[in-house]
């Protein structure tokens, strides 16, 4: 009897696969504790806000969002992802902040033929030779924001630069990106441990090098501590700070405050952008969470909108992977950053902007958009991607 029931159930499930799904399950694995938590929390909150704007649905179907903390550990992330893939059978995955974690989790997701919509991590590996039909990045390729900073530092005529980044894949991408557009002298490249919080030894070395500008990429709590200690050491008098938007967004500004004023940074999005989607997003985020959104929040928001548009496009038939991939590639949604399109490696081709930190009309210390650095900018790895 039970055997027959099982067979019946199996037959029903097989038959059901050609029809629209009844609900869309999303597995969101992100860093929600520790020094990197600010990033993951913003991605999660941005994603949830989009689901709220979509009335709890994705592509017209009820959405179930499973959320888990990876504790910034590749092992924990991999276990959680396996559970989401095998036990919960999610339709999409998203949420990972750090590239080393993304590279650890990626293979299991792709083998399972589940679409991963990255709301942050954009490792060069997945943009180039290891590009994969099941991987999309709705934010940027890791190098991009650093390339933009490199261009600004070059254009502003700085000649002697020190680079500080953590020793992990995202850090290597940062240095590669920055140096692609900055052609002057690099006085020193400082690699720190990922998650390091005390920079006394590094700051002393930097003081001895006497750079005219310093480019640092230290996401989350690392950047908060670095800027605080940089200012406390009195280095801000002679050295101009530059960073990608990651190290100079609301999470860091909230913690550091006024000492960050005057710092330049790059981003593909800013909260003062004038399109109607962005205005609604920023106003509702501020209302619901009591703080300004960061670029991470905008990326989480866009990831949900991207899933929504694609599911709607295939009329809920998410089992038809080829059709779903086409729908995702076609980008059927309006991003809060304005228009952009996907390249052949599933990474964005988009504009990058220069922002400066200062006081806004309401007296808040925050980012202000100063101008465009790159227009319709693609990443440097797309040529080596042979998308199957």
């Amino acid at each position, binding site marked *: 009897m039970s055997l027959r029931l099982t067979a019946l159930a199996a037959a029903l499930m097989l038959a059901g696969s050609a029809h629209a799904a009844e609900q869309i399950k999303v597995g969101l694995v992100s860093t929600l504790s520790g020094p990197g938590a600010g990033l993951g929390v913003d991605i999660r909150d941005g994603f949830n806000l989009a689901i709220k704007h979509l009335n709890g649905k994705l592509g017209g179907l009820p959405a179930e969002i499973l959320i888990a903390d990876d504790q910034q550990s590749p092992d924990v992330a991999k276990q959680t992802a396996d559970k989401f893939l095998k036990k919960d059978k999610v339709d999409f995955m998203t949420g990972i902040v750090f590239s080393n974690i993304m590279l650890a989790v990626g293979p299991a997701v792709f083998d399972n033929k589940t679409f991963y919509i990255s709301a942050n991590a954009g490792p060069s590996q997945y943009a180039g030779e290891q590009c994969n039909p099941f991987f999309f990045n709705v934010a940027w390729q890791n190098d991009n924001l650093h390339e933009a900073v490199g261009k600004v530092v070059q254009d502003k005529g700085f000649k002697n630069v020190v680079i500080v980044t953590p020793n992990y894949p995202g850090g290597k991408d940062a240095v590669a990106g920055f140096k692609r557009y900055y052609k002057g002298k690099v006085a020193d*490249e400082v690699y720190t441990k990922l998650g390091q919080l005390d920079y006394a*030894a590094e700051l002393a070395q930097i003081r001895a090098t006497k750079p005219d500008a310093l480019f640092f990429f230290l996401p989350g709590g690392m950047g908060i501590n670095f800027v605080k200690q940089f200012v406390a050491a009195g280095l801000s008098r002679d050295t101009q700070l530059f960073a990608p938007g990651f190290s100079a967004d609301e999470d860091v500004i909230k913690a550091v405050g006024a000492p960050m004023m005057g710092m330049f940074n790059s981003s593909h999005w800013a909260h003062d952008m004038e399109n109607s989607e962005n205005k609604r997003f920023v106003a509702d985020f501020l209302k619901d969470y009591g703080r300004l959104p960061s670029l991470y929040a905008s990326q989480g928001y866009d990831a949900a909108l991207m899933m929504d548009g694609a599911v709607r496009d295939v009329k809920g038939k998410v089992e038809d992977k080829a059709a779903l991939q086409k729908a995702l590639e076609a980008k059927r949604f309006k991003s809060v950053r304005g228009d952009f399109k996907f390249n052949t490696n599933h990474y964005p081709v988009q504009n990058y902007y220069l922002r400066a930190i200062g006081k806004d009309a309401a007296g808040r210390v925050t980012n202000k958009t100063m101008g465009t650095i790159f227009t319709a900018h693609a990443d440097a790895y797309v040529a080596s991607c042979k998308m199957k």
Partner: protein
Amino acid sequence: MLQLFLEQALNGLQFGLMLFLLAAGLTLVFGIMDCINLAHGSLYMVGAYFVAAAAQAADSFWIGLGAGVAGAAVLGLLLELSLFRQLYKRDHLSQVLATFALILIANEAVRMIWGAQPVMLNPPEALAGPVEFELFGETFFYPAYRLLIIAVGLAVGGLLYLLVAKSRVGMWVRAGAANREMTEALGINVQRLFTAVFVFGAALCALAGGLLGPLLAVQVGMGESVLILAFVVIIIGGIGSIRGALVGSLIVGTVDTLGRALLPTLLRAALPADAASTLGPALASILIYLLMAGILFFKPQGLFPARA
């Protein structure tokens, strides 16, 4: 060059002195009662949270520091009376298991009360910037707050030295570390002595946590990484020896700071840039463990063994 040398020396001193605050309590508890307390790092974490919470409530770093240290001392007293008393007679495995459980309980409790995200603790406004001073005709800069940490560390170290080396209680403590049974036979209440040492150790933990809070981050799990360093310190210094803890702390602090500062530069001179940038940070982070292995090879009991 002089500025760099002085600054790195001060950095090493600052890191070492903070390690000393942690290692002092740990080495006495381990030395006198032969009790392995893995939850020592949790006292550091909880102490830091106490300081942060009190500083926020009182809107003053100093009041917060005082209240947090006092709170941690009370917590230490309660822990000693309720749990650790039962553990002294047990073997090391039971102690490790019980105190490891305490780590998990402390982490989850902190997560429930204060949340998973780090809590902000800012240094006093007056100490947020650098200090400038003239030396040999050159102008030096050093963060004012780090100077304060060095001053407090030196003061506490001096006080501990006086207490342990010159006072009657200190004599009992040293006697207890050297030979517990004989000390008891001489009519010293080692039980009560240990309660006092444990409470004092907890207060030192909170002091270190509160002082380091504005430099690092007050967060769940901050105790574990520092606990490992504290164990390295007491093993290098010799278990049960305050002098060993001080020397061990300063060695570890200096070697770690210099390793992070100099190794990448040295390697870059010898190796291709790519290999140097990968190897440098990795080697710097294991340097103190190499140092520990080296010292244990020549001095298996540590530099200043209490039971010579």
